[in-house]
C-alpha cells in the first residue's frame, strides 16, 4: 500500500508521465545520485521524493521527523545516526538525547508500513521497542549498533510481536542484559528470520528454543550467537542451517571427544556458503582446525574478540586465500601480521585492536614491522585501523608506497603525543606521506606527536577527505585552519585535546554549513568564541555541553552541526543551545 499523489499538477514539458519518471528515478541506488537528481528541476524533485523508499539521516538533529515525512511520503526503510561519535568513548554524558521515540510517534502516522529501522548511537527505550513492535505491522528489520537505553525486555517485545521480522541485529549496545528469555518469545509459527545477531548479549538463551528457531527459519543467512552457546550446541545449529553465509560462533572452548570434534568439522564442511566468520571469544586453539574446511570461500574474518596468538592465526590463514577483510586482536603480534601478508593477497581491510589498551600486563602487541609486512603482501589494502604502541615515519611512508589506494587510514598510536620512536621526530611526515600518496583518502585518524605541519599537509593534499579525527595533536590555531581551508569535501571533523581555540573555530564558520558536524572537546575554545559563531551563523546549531567542574568561560565540549530543524527542543539542562 502506498501513498498516492493527490492533486499535484505537473505542469511540465516532459514527455514522461510522472509515474514513469518516478519509476526510473526510483531505480537509482546511490544516495548521492538521488540527491543530485532532486536538484535538477521541480518536477524531478517531486518524482524523486515520491519514489524514495529508503532514507539515511547521518545526524538525527539535522532534520525533524515532520520535515522528513513531509518531503518523503513513501519511506519503508530509515537509517538514523544520533550522538556524536565520541559518545562511544564516554565523552558525551548520559541523557544527551538522540531518542528515537519522537521519530516513531510520527512514523506511526506517516509511515505505518515502515519495514526497516537501522539505528546507530541512538537512545532506544523498551517502551520504544514495544511501540515499534505493535504499531508497525509490516516491520521487518531492526538493527541497533552502539545504542543505549533498552534492555532484553524490549527485545522480547520485538520477538513476540513482529510477525514478519527478517532481521534482528543487536551489536555493541549499552543494553541492560536481564536474561536470555527474549529469544523464547519468538512464536512457534514464526519462520521468516534471515538475520539474527545476538553475539554481544550476555545471558544464556534457551538452547532448545534457539535450535527450533534456526531449524524452522529456512531462509536464515546470518546467525551470530553469543558466548553462552557451546561447541556441541553450535554443531547442532550448523546441521540445521548449512546454508548460512555469516556465522558468529559461540565460545570456542569446550572439551570435545574426538567423535564430537569430527562431527563439528563435518558440520563446518557442509557450510559451503560461508563468507563471514566471527566470534570465537575464548579460543581454545586445539579446536580451530574444525574451521579450516569452512574457510575456503571466507571473505570476512572478524576475530576482534578472540585473543589468538600468531601461530594459531597463521595456521588458520593458510586456509583463507580469498580473505578480503580481517579484524584481529594485537595478541597475534607482528608475526601474525606477517602471516597475513603471506597468505591473504586479496586483503582489502585490516583492523587490529589492542588486547590490553591500558598496559596492565607485559604487552607486545603489534609494531611498525607488522604494518609493513601486511602492506608488502596485500597491495589491495585500502582500509586500515591499527592500534599500536610504536610507529615510525619511515614505516608509514613504506606502507602507503606499497598500498597507495587507501580510502580509510586510521592509525592509533596509543600513547598520546608519542613521536617517531626511532628518530624522536614528530609523526608529521608519516601523515604527510599518507595524504600525498593516497589521493583517494576519505577518512583519516591521526595520532602521535604532531605539529601544525601535519595539518598543513592535510589541507594541501587531502582533497577527497571527508572525515578527520584528531586527538592530542597540533601546535596552534593555524593547524585547524589549514584543514578547514584546504579540504573541500570535509564533512566531519572531530577534535579532542588540541590547542585549537576561537580563531580556529571561527575560521570555519562558513564551512560548517557544508559539513555534517564539528566536535571539539578539551581544546582552547571559550564561551565567547562559541557565542560569536552562533551569532554569525544562525542556521547552524551550536551546542556546548556544560560540566560543573569546569570554569564557566571555557567551552569544553562544543558540537556544531547544520540543521533545517532549528535548535534542539529536547536538549537536557547540561546542553546549551546557543
Amino acid at each position, binding site marked *: 500500500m502506498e501513498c498516492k499523489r493527490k492533486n499535484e499538477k505537473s505542469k511540465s514539458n516532459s514527455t514522461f508521465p510522472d509515474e514513469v519518471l518516478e519509476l526510473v528515478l526510483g531505480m537509482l541506488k546511490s544516495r548521492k545520485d538521488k540527491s543530485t537528481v532532486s536538484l535538477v528541476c521541480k518536477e524531478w524533485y517531486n518524482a524523486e521524493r515520491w519514489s524514495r523508499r529508503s532514507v539515511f539521516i547521518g545526524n538525527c538533529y539535522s532534520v525533524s521527523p515532520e520535515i522528513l515525512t513531509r518531503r518523503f511520503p513513501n519511506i519503508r526503510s530509515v537509517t538514523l545516526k544520533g550522538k556524536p561519535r*565520541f559518545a562511544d*568513548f*564516554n*565523552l558525551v554524558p548520559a541523557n544527551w538525547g538522540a531518542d528515537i521515540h519522537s521519530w516513531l510517534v510520527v512514523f506511526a502516522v506517516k509511515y505505518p508500513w515502515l519495514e526497516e529501522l537501522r539505528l546507530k548511537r541512538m537512545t532506544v527505550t523498551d517502551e520504544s521497542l514495544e511501540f515499534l513492535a505493535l504499531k508497525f505491522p509490516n516491520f521487518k528489520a531492526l538493527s541497533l549498533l*552502539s545504542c543505549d537505553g533498552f534492555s532484553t525486555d524490549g527485545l522480547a517485545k520485538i520477538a513476540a510481536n513482529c510477525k514478519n521480522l527478517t532481521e534482528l541485529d543487536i551489536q*555493541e549496545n*549499552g543494553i541492560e542484559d536481564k536474561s536470555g528469555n527474549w529469544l523464547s518469545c519468538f512464536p512457534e509459527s514464526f519462520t521468516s528470520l534471515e538475520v539474527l545477531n545476538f553475539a554481544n548479549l*550476555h545471558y544464556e538463551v534457551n538452547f532448545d528454543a534457539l535450535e527450533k528457531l534456526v531449524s524452522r527459519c529456512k531462509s536464515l543467512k546470518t546467525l551470530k550467537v553469543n*558466548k553462552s552457546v557451546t561447541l556441541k550446541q553450535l554443531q547442532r545449529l550448523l546441521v540445521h542451517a548449512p546454508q548460512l553465509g555469516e556465522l558468529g560462533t559461540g565460545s570456542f*572452548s569446550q572439551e570435545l571427544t574426538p567423535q564430537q570434534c569430527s562431527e563439528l568439522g563435518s558440520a563446518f564442511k557442509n557450510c559451503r556458503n560461508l563468507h563471514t566468520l566471527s566470534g570465537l*571469544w*575464548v*579460543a581454545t*586453539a586445539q579446536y580451530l582446525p574444525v574451521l579450516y574446511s569452512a574457510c575456503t570461500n571466507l571473505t570476512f574474518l572478524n576475530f*576482534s*574478540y578472540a*585473543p589468538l596468538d600468531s601461530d594459531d592465526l597463521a595456521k588458520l590463514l593458510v586456509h583463507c586465500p580469498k580473505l578480503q577483510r580481517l579484524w584481529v586482536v594485537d*595478541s597475534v603480534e607482528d608475526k601474525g601480521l606477517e602471516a597475513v601478508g603471506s597468505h591473504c593477497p586479496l586483503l582489502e581491510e585490516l583492523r587490529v*585492536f*589492542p*588486547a*590490553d*589498551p*591500558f*598496559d*596492565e600486563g607485559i604487552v607486545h602487541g603489534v609494531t611498525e614491522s607488522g604494518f609493513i609486512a601486511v602492506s608488502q603482501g596485500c597491495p589491495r589494502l585500502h582500509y586500515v585501523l591499527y592500534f599500536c604502541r610504536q610507529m615510525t615515519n619511515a614505516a608509514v611512508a613504506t606502507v602507503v608506497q606499497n598500498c597507495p589506494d587507501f580510502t580509510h587510514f586510521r592509525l*592509533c598510536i*596509543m*600513547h*598520546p*603525543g*608519542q*613521536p617517531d620512536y626511532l628518530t*624522536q621526530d614528530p609523526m608529521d611526515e608519516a601523515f604527510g606521506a599518507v595524504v600525498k600518496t593516497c589521493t583517494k583518502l576519505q577518512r583519516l585518524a591521526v595520532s602521535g*606527536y604532531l*605539529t*601544525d605541519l601535519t595539518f598543513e599537509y592535510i589541507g594541501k593534499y587531502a582533497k577527497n577527505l571527508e572525515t578527520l579525527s584528531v586527538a*592530542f595533536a*597540533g*601546535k*596552534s*590555531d593555524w593547524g585547524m585552519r589549514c584543514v578547514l581551508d584546504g579540504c573541500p569535501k570535509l564533512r566531519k571533523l572531530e577534535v579532542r*585535546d588540541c*590547542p*585549537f*581555540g576561537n*580563531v580556529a573555530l571561527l575560521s570555519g564558520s562558513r564551512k560548517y554549513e557544508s559539513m555534517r558536524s564539528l566536535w571539539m572537546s*578539551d581544546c*582552547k575554545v*571559550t564561551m*565567547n568564541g562559541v557565542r*560569536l559563531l552562533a*551569532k*554569525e551563523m544562525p542556521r547552524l546549531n551550536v551546542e556546548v555541553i556544560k560540566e*560543573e*567542574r569546569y*570554569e564557566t*568561560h*571555557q567551552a*569544553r565540549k562544543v558540537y556544531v552541526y547544520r540543521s533545517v530543524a532549528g535548535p534542539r527542543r529536547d536538549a537536557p539542562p547540561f546542553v546549551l543551545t546557543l
Partner: protein
Amino acid sequence: MSTLSKDDNLVLSSEDSSCPEESELELGLGLSLSGSSKDFPSSASSPSSSSSSSPNFTAGTKRAADSLAANNRPSQVVGWPPLRTYRVNSCNYNSHTKSPEVFDSVAEKKKRHLRSSLFVKVNMDGIPIGRKVDLSAHSSYETLAQTLEDMFNESTTVITCKGSNGEDHGIIIGGERHSKLLDGSSKFVLTYEDKEGDWMLVGDVPWGMFISSVRRLRIMRTSEANGLGPRLEENIRQKSKPI
C-alpha cells in the same frame, strides 16, 4: 567584523595561540577523575614525584612529548584509546590471567577468558550490613565511586578516593552536591583488599590493574586509615586543621 571581549584578544592577537599559564595548564588530558588535574598521568612513578613535577601536556613541545614517551602508558585518560565500552570491558578481562582466584578455575595458562561479572563485597565503617557491587559494570574509578555513593546514602559525608594521577577526588554521599572535597571534613576513604591480603587505597593504579587484584572494598574512616601511604596521611594532616 566580530568583536570579542578582552579575554579573547589574547587568543586573537597572534596565530600562535599560546595562552596564559592557567589555560595552558587546563589543557590537560581531560582526566575524568579530577577537574583540576594538571599532571600528565604518571602512574608508573611514585606519588611524590607526580605531585611535584608537572609535566604539562603542551602539545607541540618536544620536551613534554618526551616525558610522555618516557611514561609509555595510555593510562586512564577519558575515552582513550578510542575503543567502545563493550570492547574495553572485554579487554579488562583479558588482563585477568594474573589473578586466578578471580577467575573460573577452568582457566588455562595460555587462554584468556572473558568474564561476565565481578561482584565484590563493600562494607562501610559504621554500617553493619554490607553490599555487593559488580565491578565489571564499571570502567573507571569515577563511576564506581558514584555507584557507591548511591548505595551508601548518608547525609553529607564524603568519601575520598584518589584519581589515578594522584589527585584527590571527593564524592559526597547524600546531601547537597559540593565541589570535590569538603574543607577538612572528609571522614571516609575508599580502600580495597588485594589478592595478597593487603589493604590498599583505591585509585593508585590503573583501573584494569585494580580490577585484576581487588578482592573486596571497604569504605574506611579516615581516622583508621593510618599507614595506607605517606600521601594519604599527608592529606589527612592537611585537612584536619584546627578550627
